[in-house]
């Protein structure tokens, strides 16, 4: 059974008790009484399976902060069991907070993977890893590639299997910020977005629904093939140039969620990854042109 098989009212009532959503290797049991959370989950996760069994990897909750603040500038809080990793946020950011909280659960606990801070997509069995500094246009490019037929594994966390070095997908919604929301809306008018949260610590944020193909195939690990460091520059022609592997290694290691935590294994897995991929810098100014470059890359 998938979340989309429930009516919005059913989804809302299931969320009160705890709704177990399977996102790739992780089952989240999500609890919330907030209509905003139910509406956004139902809109963005309809293709995700509901986990039937009694087990969940993470038991999370997003709700109003109790007390007098319920009426005056209400706030939302995120819980993993009894742990609250964040300060409360304005209640209209509750859904974004759930997404950040779910990322935090994975990044802070799933040390059975090497976790890099990078987006991953796959085409014809080969995976593209997009690390990127904030503002480099990583999320915009990830969203556009997914809408162009690439399978989304993750927009934020690259999960590397410690046994075989393959990449595991989550296929959760792509978090878009500020101007990139309008860029993707203009680029793909049919794309489905969640509510827009304004004035968050990341600016304006909205989540983009993953393609059904990405969700249906979360169970298929992908072989890494390319690491591309994107950089958006106004009106720049799309251009791939080689990126030194040693520099790419250092960048990935220093931006990973748990590289040093894994010790020698972190080094071994990253080194094995570097052996399996080609590394590129990618500058672009216009999405259609960028997509052509990546189609050619995948076809080559």
């Amino acid at each position: 059974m998938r979340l989309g098989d429930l009516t919005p009212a059913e989804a809302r009532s299931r969320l009160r008790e705890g709704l177990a959503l399977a996102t790739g290797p992780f089952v989240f049991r999500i609890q919330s009484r907030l209509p905003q959370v139910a509406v956004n989950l139902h809109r963005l996760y309809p293709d995700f399976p509901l986990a039937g069994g009694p087990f969940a990897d993470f038991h999370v909750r997003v709700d109003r902060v109790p007390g007098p603040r319920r009426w005056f500038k209400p706030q939302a809080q995120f819980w993993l069991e009894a742990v609250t990793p964040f300060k409360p946020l304005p209640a209209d950011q509750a859904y974004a907070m759930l997404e950040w909280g779910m990322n935090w659960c994975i990044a802070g606990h799933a040390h059975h993977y090497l976790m890099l801070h990078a987006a991953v997509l796959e085409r014809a069995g080969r995976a593209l890893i997009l690390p990127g500094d904030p503002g480099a246009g990583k999320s915009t490019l990830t969203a556009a590639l997914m809408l162009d037929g690439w399978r989304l594994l993750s927009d934020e966390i690259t999960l590397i299997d410690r046994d075989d070095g393959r990449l595991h997908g989550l296929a959760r919604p792509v978090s878009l910020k500020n101007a990139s929301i309008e860029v993707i809306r203009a680029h793909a008018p049919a794309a489905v977005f969640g509510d827009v949260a304004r004035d968050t610590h990341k600016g304006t944020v909205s989540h983009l629904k993953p393609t059904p193909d990405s969700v249906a195939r979360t169970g298929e690990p992908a072989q890494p093939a390319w690491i591309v460091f994107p950089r958006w520059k106004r009106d720049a022609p799309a251009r791939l140039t080689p990126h030194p592997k040693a520099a790419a290694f250092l960048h990935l290691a220093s931006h990973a969620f748990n590289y040093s935590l894994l010790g020698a294994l972190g080094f071994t897995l990253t080194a094995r990854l570097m052996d399996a991929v080609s590394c590129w810098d990618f500058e672009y100014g216009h999405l259609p042109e960028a997509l052509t470059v990546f189609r050619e890359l995948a076809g080559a």
Partner: protein
Amino acid sequence: MRCPLLLTVLREPARMTRLDLAAWDRLLPQAHAAGLLARLAVLADGLGLTADLPAPVKPHLTAARTLAERQHRAVLWEAHKLDAALASLGVPVLLLKGAAYVLGDLPPARGRLFSDIDILVPKAALGAVEAQLMLNGWHATNHSDYDQRYYREWMHELPPMTHLRRGSHLDVHHNLLPETARLQTRPDRVIAASTPLAGHRCLRLPCLEDLVLHSATHLFHEGEWGHGLRDLADLDALLRLGMQRPSWWAGLLARAHALNLAHPLALALRYAHRLLATPVSADVLTELGCNAGRQPLADAVVRGHKDEPPHAPSPPRRPLPWPVFSTRLPWLWRDALFLRGFSAAHADCALPGTALATFLLYVRAHALRMPLRLLLPHLLYKAVQGKATTGP
């Protein structure tokens, strides 16, 4: 206490293979909250059970094991850096708690998580040690004049230090208990009985008895009970190691009296025996007054050991200002309090009244640390600062 699951598998790890997924769905969060998930992983590995556990459970144990291994590497490196920084002073530097278990390769180290390193140095060397640490990159984290005074005048440690580059936390103790605590002990005897740590120049390990006594003292003097069960599991592992030695219990009791720490030892043995089924003989429990309804424990503590009189500067035990914490109250009442403390790690385990009990234990910890004339102004100050629950 209801943490039936977590306590059950700590007592009898082989039961892990018989748990269904619904049970694991509760056990993993309980163990994680108590800081014992990696311990479960190591217990399962030790008994060769891991392969038989349900597939969704294994990744959690792998992740917890990975984190514990990382922390152990970090502790070994930190100890190496401490040894290098302090060796030139020529003073003994004792590792305490987690760092001692790891460097001494003692049973509680297996799968243990920790957040800081604790060392004990002679009080006379404190200034030199602090200066040398600062030259080597450690710096104090509490900058307010009030906090500095709180630690330096009243506590048994320097304000917590953090390394500038590595971000590691270090607590430098000169005593096992605060200067102002109603119970006073003899850190000089702990230092005298310590042994050098192979491969290091100034680092030393307390003897096993003293590790037990310090862990018990720490557990029953702290106001934070989130790690209570983890600390009790440490004690269980230390005691099971000790009891393989000849005349362990007699030696432990004598040492407890010599250090004036029979009271925390009595509490530790009672609850380790009760919650984790640590095999403590009835004679030992009786000797310490752990079995009686109303018990002569306070006398035992003041009396000291006949071979080694209580130390000279030991002030008489200040009576606790709150009758609810009196050691003369029946065990029924004290069990009600402490069992709730041990159940505080996770909501699944919480007994009715746990919130009140943890508050009372927090007050108790402060009452043990300092007399009312210091404590009331301190709590008032912290409340005004809005740090009453997070500060020292």
